């Protein structure tokens, strides 16, 4: 009898995925240990709340210069849009039939703007900006979206504390909500 009980306990401990038919198949364990420290992997992992942001800082003025030099050709003056997306200047709100999605109107987390610029830009040499340059471009993009004042200098702490206007604009459709959950109406209308 105790063994039955133990069995039940054991089953309760098995994570959901282990119940899948193929789950007992194991591999030859050929992976080599990583030297540790996720922080050393480049590009660095920067969380939505700003964890992982590097030391250093950058301001709107430097950002404006860098933008003119590295970004404007595709994103237009002030980020108004050209061959690539508009980055700022949304006038129609998100609930308008003509909604405009930009960093200022749509992006939920400011640190992820830093993350995106450091991992994907500049286009001709991705990953080559210094932390100061990325903070500066982030500051400029937030300034051009009316989220920070001219003259703002951003660093880990200040960038982490910025709350984007559309922070709460997303309804998670995974895990799939149950009928009756308010998210149901958004996810499975």
């Amino acid at each position, binding site marked *: 009898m105790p063994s039955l009980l133990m069995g039940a306990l054991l089953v309760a401990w098995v*994570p*959901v*995925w*282990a119940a*899948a038919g*193929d*789950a007992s*198949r*194991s*591999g*030859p*364990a*050929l*992976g*080599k*240990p*990583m030297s*540790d420290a*996720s922080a050393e*992997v480049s*590009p660095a*992992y920067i*969380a*939505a709340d700003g964890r992982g942001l590097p030391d250093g800082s950058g301001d709107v003025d430097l950002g404006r210069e860098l933008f003119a030099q590295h970004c404007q*050709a*595709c994103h237009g003056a002030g980020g108004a849009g050209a*061959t*690539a997306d508009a980055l700022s200047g949304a006038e129609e*709100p*998100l*609930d308008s*039939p003509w*909604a405009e*999605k930009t*960093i200022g109107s*749509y*992006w*939920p*987390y400011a640190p*992820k703007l830093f*993350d*995106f610029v450091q*991992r*994907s830009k500049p*286009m001709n040499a*991705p*990953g080559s900006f210094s932390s100061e340059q990325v903070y500066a471009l982030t500051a400029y993009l937030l300034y051009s979206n009316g989220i920070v004042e001219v003259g703002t200098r951003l660093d880990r702490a200040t960038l982490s504390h910025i709350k984007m206007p559309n922070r709460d*604009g*997303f*309804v*998670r*459709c*995974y*895990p799939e909500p149950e009928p009756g959950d308010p998210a149901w109406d*958004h*996810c499975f*209308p």
Partner: protein
Amino acid sequence: MQRRRFLKSGLALGTLTPLAGTSAAMEYARPPWMNEPGAGFSNYGQPSEHEKAVIRWISANPAVAGNGVAWCPLHALAGMVTPNGLHFERHHHGVPPIDPVQHRLMVDGQVARPLSFSVEDLRRYPLRSHLGFIECGGNSSAGWHREPVQTSVSYIHGLISCSEWCGVPLRILLQEAGVVPDAGWVIAEGADAFAMQVSLPMDKAMDDTLVALYQNGEAVRPENGYPLRLVVPGWEGVLHVKWLRRLRVASEPAMARNETARYSDLMPSGKARQFSFSMDAKSVITSPHSAAPVQGPGHWQISGLAWSGRGRITRVDVSVDGGRSWRTAELMEPVLAKCLTRFQYDWVWDGKPTILQSRAVDESGYVQPTRETLLSARGHNAEFHYNAIVSWAVDAEGAVEHVYA
């Protein structure tokens, strides 16, 4: 001599009466390619030179060659498998020239043992196969437009393809690294210039997700992620991270640009659906199509593709009268879960203008919605995940045009 003269008159006859079909002389005579030795072997076979028109259509950003899409020519293919050279492409910043010897896959974050795998290591693992579709979340996005876009079916719906993907179950690699109990997400990153980053729920990672090494039997093509890509059966394309380099186990999703600013569906309320991963059931007629008008009244085969990210297609209905009546189409075997399914329908056209439509039903009971139903729920600004019924008008001349009906 005699034969040649006969052949000549046969040809002349053929040109005089083109609708009468091949003349008996042409049909019975020994064709020229039987009268000389054929070509030799080839190291890597290519399509017939007569099939040069069957290509991907590229829509790239004028300022960034590697940004944009290449559409799969659905209208020119049959069955359900996509040839590797025609699989649709979506790149954000080009195809990286990865050296497989130097490439590594890192598994780190909330794991007991952060691990690094070489491609050679992964080729020694037990493999699993998934024959299934990959569909870009932005496929069919023209459907959100207020006016029907006039172009080929493939230019609207061709960001989907179907292959046999063979690879290591992601679960095995995660278990070897030792995922901590409450880690709910795996953040996947690519080794491209864009450094793609997206988040995959742990349940799916532990279920049927593969780290794919092979596509239809050969190494994954560079434009499809060589040497490694994620394959996440039934879920939107962006999760199938190409050039896979890093899997970071975490308790929260990354909230990356491509899971917030993009691939989310803005609703009329101003809120957006996020993590709407599963590609809902959809179907589209690929023949007849706008570049191949119906050549007069009579019997025609309506053919198309249906699929669902939630399992098998159980039924496809076809309407040849603009949705007034529906008939069940024939499904071509095999009919597999999370895979393209080919449907066919025998149509006898009376020569009058009409509208052709198809409607897929999957094993969850989900029925492909009408455009009206989809738009009334999601408005015009969703940008992604469009799966409404597609309508093609056939006019009295047999010309096919994309319409909203």
